[in-house]
């Protein structure tokens, strides 16, 4: 496995079924990420509880991949070729991690419905519907139906370029990441936050591949903190607005998926939340939609 992440960024993805993959899974050496945070991950101490590690890693990797897809799907207008590929591949038949959340079921329901509706290929009309929907929800002009920036939901002033934005930007900088955008836009876009989470997850996997326990711990801590400080406080509400206002099953489904993924990840990392993650009302919405 690559020791330098930047040189071959997605080697492990290309190697998803390879034996070295299995190797790092067995070497990860922790029961669960929460416990792992406090453990000394010495590379020379492969532990015995392989079954549980396997589950954990599969779950972790699955969440990372979903975050990566959400990043691409939510940051930027619909990419026709990419989406066509998703439909052709039957991506939305399932999610790559285990979950009994009603959100995930609702997501699969919406996404499956959308996939079926475009089964023969993403036609001009269907693609225009996606672009229009994305524009209305997240681009404008004017009042947005579901502004895709954290500070609009998490900050009491509900504006953009707030302290949340700087905090998120600084999170990226601490991991030597910046925005690809050529103009001044807030770092706390929903898609970018998912991209960051996916990046950290990928780095965790790579760090464990080279048995860098200190780095794994740092990355796991970062993911837990970023989820708790940033994604968890706002994505559920944001997803609610998208579900309410989206015209297409794709964006409705992606919103359910975003919400479900954040909640699942929070539970996975045992993120302490000051507020209940969900109210019953919305969960019921998810169930009835499902």
């Amino acid at each position: 496995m690559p020791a330098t992440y930047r040189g071959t960024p997605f080697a492990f993805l290309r190697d998803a079924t390879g034996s070295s993959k299995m190797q790092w899974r067995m070497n990860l050496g922790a029961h669960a990420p929460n416990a792992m945070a406090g453990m000394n991950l010495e590379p020379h101490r492969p532990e015995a509880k392989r079954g549980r590690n396997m589950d954990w890693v599969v779950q972790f990797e699955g969440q990372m991949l979903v975050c990566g897809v959400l990043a691409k799907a939510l940051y930027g207008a619909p990419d026709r070729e990419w989406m066509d590929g998703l439909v052709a591949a039957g991506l939305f038949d399932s999610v790559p991690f285990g979950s009994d959340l009603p959100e995930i079921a609702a997501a699969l329901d919406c996404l499956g419905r959308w996939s079926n509706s475009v089964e023969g290929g993403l036609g001009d009309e269907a693609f225009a519907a996606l672009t229009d929907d994305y524009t209305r929800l997240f681009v404008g002009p004017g009042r947005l139906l579901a502004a895709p920036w954290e500070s609009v939901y998490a900050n009491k002033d509900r504006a953009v370029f707030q302290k949340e934005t700087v905090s998120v930007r600084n999170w990226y900088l601490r991991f030597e990441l910046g925005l690809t955008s050529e103009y001044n836009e807030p770092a706390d876009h929903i898609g970018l936050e998912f991209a960051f989470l996916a990046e950290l997850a990928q780095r965790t996997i790579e760090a464990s591949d080279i048995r860098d326990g200190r780095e794994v711990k740092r990355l796991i801590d970062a993911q837990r903190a970023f989820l708790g400080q940033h994604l968890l406080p706002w994505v559920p509400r944001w997803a609610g607005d998208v579900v309410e206002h989206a015209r297409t099953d794709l964006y409705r489904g992606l919103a359910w998926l975003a919400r479900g993924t954040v909640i699942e990840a929070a539970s996975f990392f045992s993120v302490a939340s000051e507020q209940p993650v969900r109210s019953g009302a919305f969960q019921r919405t998810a169930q009835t939609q499902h």
Partner: protein
Amino acid sequence: MNAPGMPRARNPIELWAAAVRQAGGVGFGLKKEPRARQLLGSGGGKGKWIAADCWPDCGSKGFNKAYVEDGVVVRMGTDDTIEDSWNKPQLRACARGQSLRLWLLGADRLKYPMKRKHWEPGGGKKELRGKDEWVRISWDEALDILAGELKRIKQSYGNEAILAPWVGAIAARALGAYGGFTDQWGAHSTGTWLPAHLHTGFGYPHWNDRFDMVETKLFLLWGTNPVWSQAGLPAYTYMQAKRNGARFIAIDPFYNPTYEMLTDEWMPIRPGTDHALILGMIHTLLVEDDPAANKLIDWDFLNRCTVGFDAEHLPEGADPRDNLKDYVLGLNDGQPRDAEWAAQICGAPPERIRWLARLLAKEEHAAICTSGGVARIDNADTLPQAFIALTAMTGHFGKPHSQLGVHHHFGTNGGPQLVQGQNSRSYANSHLRAPPIPNPVCDDMMAGGFQHTSRKGCININEINTAVLNGHYTGVDGEKVPIDLRMIYHAHGSRVNQLPNTVEGIRAHRKVEFVVTQNMFMNADAIYSDLVLPVTSRWERDGNVCIGYREQLLWHSKVMEPYFECRDDLWIGVELAKRLGIDPAIVEPWSWKQEIFNQVADARVMNEDGKTFEPLVTITKDDLAAFDVEGVPQQGRITVEEFREKGIYHIPREPGDNHGFVYLKEFREDPDANPLATRSGKLEIHCQAIADLVNRLGWSQIRPIPAYVPPMEGYEATFSDWEQRIKGDYPLQVYNIHMPRRAHNFFDNATVMRELFPHEYIMNPIDAAPRGIANGDTVLIRSPWGKVLRTVWVTPHIMPGVTILGQGSRVDLDEETGIDRGGCANVLKGSKPTGGGHIGWNSLIVEVEKWTGAPLRSDVETAHVIPLKDAYA
């Protein structure tokens, strides 16, 4: 199509991994940042205060500062550069200024160039404007579309076909250089005061110095509300006068917060009836005056300094019957305009009218302080002459502690400017040392400048939309001028929303071949456009220099980086120039940074002698190097750095200094040696120039003296039979005041302002009860021109028969029913001009009924973002 390399029916991990791979990796939108360490350490958690402009045109001026931490505007501050005192007050910000941060960082600002989905060259389903989907596009595509349409329309129809109504001098630079465009003329704000200032001798600025004013003993606050409309120092001067024992009388349909703060008595009168009240007062004084036993009239001033009051003092060639005294006494037509006559119209009891006249006449130091609002009335062309006559006959011109003051734009503080710089609200020429770019279509007036009076190539503001729809407008001599407008370019203001007959405006915008709007927000102009260009606010540019009131000079700096993809008006002009084959150096002769530094260098302040000026700032060679600009070192009062850092300079003032000012003092003392800029050299109560101007335009005919003309849609028009006093279909009056939530259309979309200040329809319980309307109900307001829904505030603060719908709220038209849910006052107002082509916003008639449909949602719910829903948490 099938994406290569993404085979079906693999396990989910493989599928999703492939999807991520196809997306280019997990970190879509992020990249490696080599400067991460420096960037992370750059903020250091330490913020700084930056002087931040507030330019929305309320007519007042506060000083705002923004505290910026790590590039984030954390909070707002105001003037703390001097110790606050009565003599030298801080220039404090108002609630609107304090909301700039959240307004400019609202999620609803325009972020990217957008085009209407079904737009195509020549229009493309024009009827969909306002309903169509939008498509985000690049700046290149947007500018290509704009330049393409400009070229096509110019080649096919000529420059006249391009309508760019008051787009501002910066945005107009490229358009002017491209051969010009059709512009507008006419006063939005000042009503009929504008021609009066130009032609009667009662000029501008005309307020006395504030140190003089605070010694005034009696104030008639007449149709004015600076606490709401021009918050800041204007009311502060009044507070000092009140502290000194002055008596305040309010004359207004609405007992507003300014009156709550200051006044001893409220005399309610109906909108548009000020003229009748004044005539009743003049009549009272004429019949009660006795130079020996009961001196009420300053005949000496009238005889020496005015023309038109009586038959003995008329301008040369005037009809002897055209004098105010004979008209008021009814000598020619048998109808005296006495207090009883006036009371029938204005609603104040005759005895109160006589009381007010005597009070004003007997007080040695009295001031009438009024506003543009009283003159934003149909047919009110000679109302200013009536005010002038009343002030003159009661002896209150040219005397200490006495005056007629109109508009609170300069903080109830008059006299020559003690500081010289741009007025930040004026959108004046952008490169002050360069000659202005002329507009060839409009007789080479400055492209994008404000045009007061009728002029070739300019359409009256009332007729902009009808000119588009009907193909003609009223020319300089009242003639019908054909015009074929094919394109509308908006770059300043809010024409659809803020000009009369918004529904007609929407129709006009759906008729032309192309509409473009460059703005910060999705205002009504932008909604009905094909192309929307996001522009930076002044916080995102290299600053600006401007005057505050009379005594403050301000230098605002750049506060933040441009919001999303927003670009400056000037940059847009340069990019357009490149595409139109114009030398960009004409549009931008030098950089904005250089321009601002030039303005700093050119800023002048008055010396203690009260006559001469000196530069404000000292500039050294090091300064020029530090600011990276060209210039010449100079000696001034303070360093460049001090001015930049503080952002404000106050002229030192104290009572008795050389900056005192009493308007018309020299004229009063010796009118022959100090003639006014009028045909007669005197104050003109008989003003032929105004009569000529109005009668030439031909919308209505007037006499040269202030004879009362009932407004087209005033109180009289609420009756189907005025003689029998039988009410008609629209029995209530409505007028549109300035609300605290906003300055015209500005600020209205800010959630914080919506939470703080409601936008309610205001009516009296006496009118509400018989209609079954209770406080808080949703009501339907119908005028001859349109229908609006609003929540009602039922209150005795408004006189019976009169209602209020504040101006500036954005239209939200339900096209099925034709009902506006946004509370836009201009949906109710027709666009037929009267007189000199001002806008008669405050003369309007309506009927109101309780709305039986779904109640209106609160304005907070329809603010710039969707309200948070707990159910989604």
